[in-house]
């Protein structure tokens, strides 16, 4: 029987949740025996090779590329899990949600104390993804099946949840593994 497939993505986050996934230590060997990784920064596969059993999303959506990527994950993954506070709440990037987008850009490219921008231009290139008006948690864009909060979620939380999902059991975490910090 073919091994179940996992895909992961880091959207608007800091990659800390992926670091936490690596923090399962020697269990990573066990994980590679249990599953095959599809599209993921862990194996650097850039495009989906086919349907995937479990998709893991780190980070929220701050631009159109994030949204496109997230929607693609929803299409390809049977179960989609958002991990970390950015994916579940918007997290630190969503601090900009209390400031109008135009003001954020003005601060970043013109008015900020450390800005050096002699051309006086706002970066605008079709290669740059357009920013959204706000940063959104993943479940406000697509349906998410499970949330694992934490900044980052502890390695044990990720491990416990993955093992449960891969063995078709419900993800029921004990008190000590649900933390928002």
């Amino acid at each position: 029987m073919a091994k179940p497939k996992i895909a992961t993505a880091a959207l608007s986050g800091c990659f800390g949740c992926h670091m936490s996934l690596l923090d399962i230590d020697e269990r990573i060997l066990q994980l590679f025996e249990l599953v095959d990784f599809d599209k993921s920064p862990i194996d650097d596969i850039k495009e989906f090779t086919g349907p995937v059993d479990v998709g893991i999303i780190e980070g929220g959506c701050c631009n159109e590329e994030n949204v496109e990527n997230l929607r693609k994950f929803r299409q390809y993954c049977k179960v989609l899990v958002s991990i970390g506070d950015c994916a579940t709440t918007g997290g630190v990037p969503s601090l900009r949600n209390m400031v109008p987008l135009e003001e954020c850009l003005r601060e970043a490219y013109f008015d900020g104390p450390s800005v050096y921008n002699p051309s006086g231009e706002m970066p605008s290139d079709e290669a740059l993804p357009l920013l959204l008006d706000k940063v959104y948690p993943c479940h406000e864009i697509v349906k998410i099946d499970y949330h694992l909060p934490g900044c980052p979620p502890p390695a044990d939380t990720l491990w416990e949840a993955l093992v449960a999902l891969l063995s078709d059991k419900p993800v029921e975490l004990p008190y000590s593994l649900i933390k928002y910090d």
Partner: protein
Amino acid sequence: MNQPVTFFIDGQVIQGQPGQTILEAAQDARVYIPRLCYREGLSNFGACRVCTVLVNDKPVAACTTPITEGMMIENDTERVQNYRKDLIDMLFVEGNHFCMFCEKSGNCELQALAYRFRIPAPKYLFQFPQREIDASHPDIFIDRNRCILCGRCVRASKELDGKNVFQFVGRGTEKRIAVNADQLSDTDAVVTDQAMDACPVGAILKKHIGYTIPVGKRVYDHQPIGADIEDSAVASDT
């Protein structure tokens, strides 16, 4: 001597003293009813509704409703717990609660309730409201992003400190905590006021002492909120 009042919580017989609220009488019988705006030593307020119970199928705030003889109360059932979960959810999305860097994290009653109810993420849409901060005072910091309008600072300042530093202003979504001057540093608030310890979240913080307790040793790191009231076996780790 007062005759005890006999009532029922989830079918269990409990005796309380006349004049006690449902919440107090339950607590004396080691039954925990979740709460946020209630604080021992302050007047009862009924603001947060997290202590909602059903009396004769009608939702009431346990912290403001007195017990009566033969009262039938529904507390720990799926329906009631779902009301409370929804209320906690709403408190999270109505404010700007950044647990990942908040000084109160691990000691925050709102966060602790979310942990107790095993809420992995709020189901409602985040509002991201614009709220004001007040860092004018040399020793005290007000961050209204985290305020849940429980009124504990209002009551503590008035009832315990005899000062009236805090008060509500505005209505509905505009409602907020104000101070009785242009800014906090112009009031007679001092860091030793009991009002400064009354905040269940990180909206009123003492300066210069952030993050003093390491992760793993904070109040709610291992033990759920309310576990001290219940028999310990009930709420411990699954």
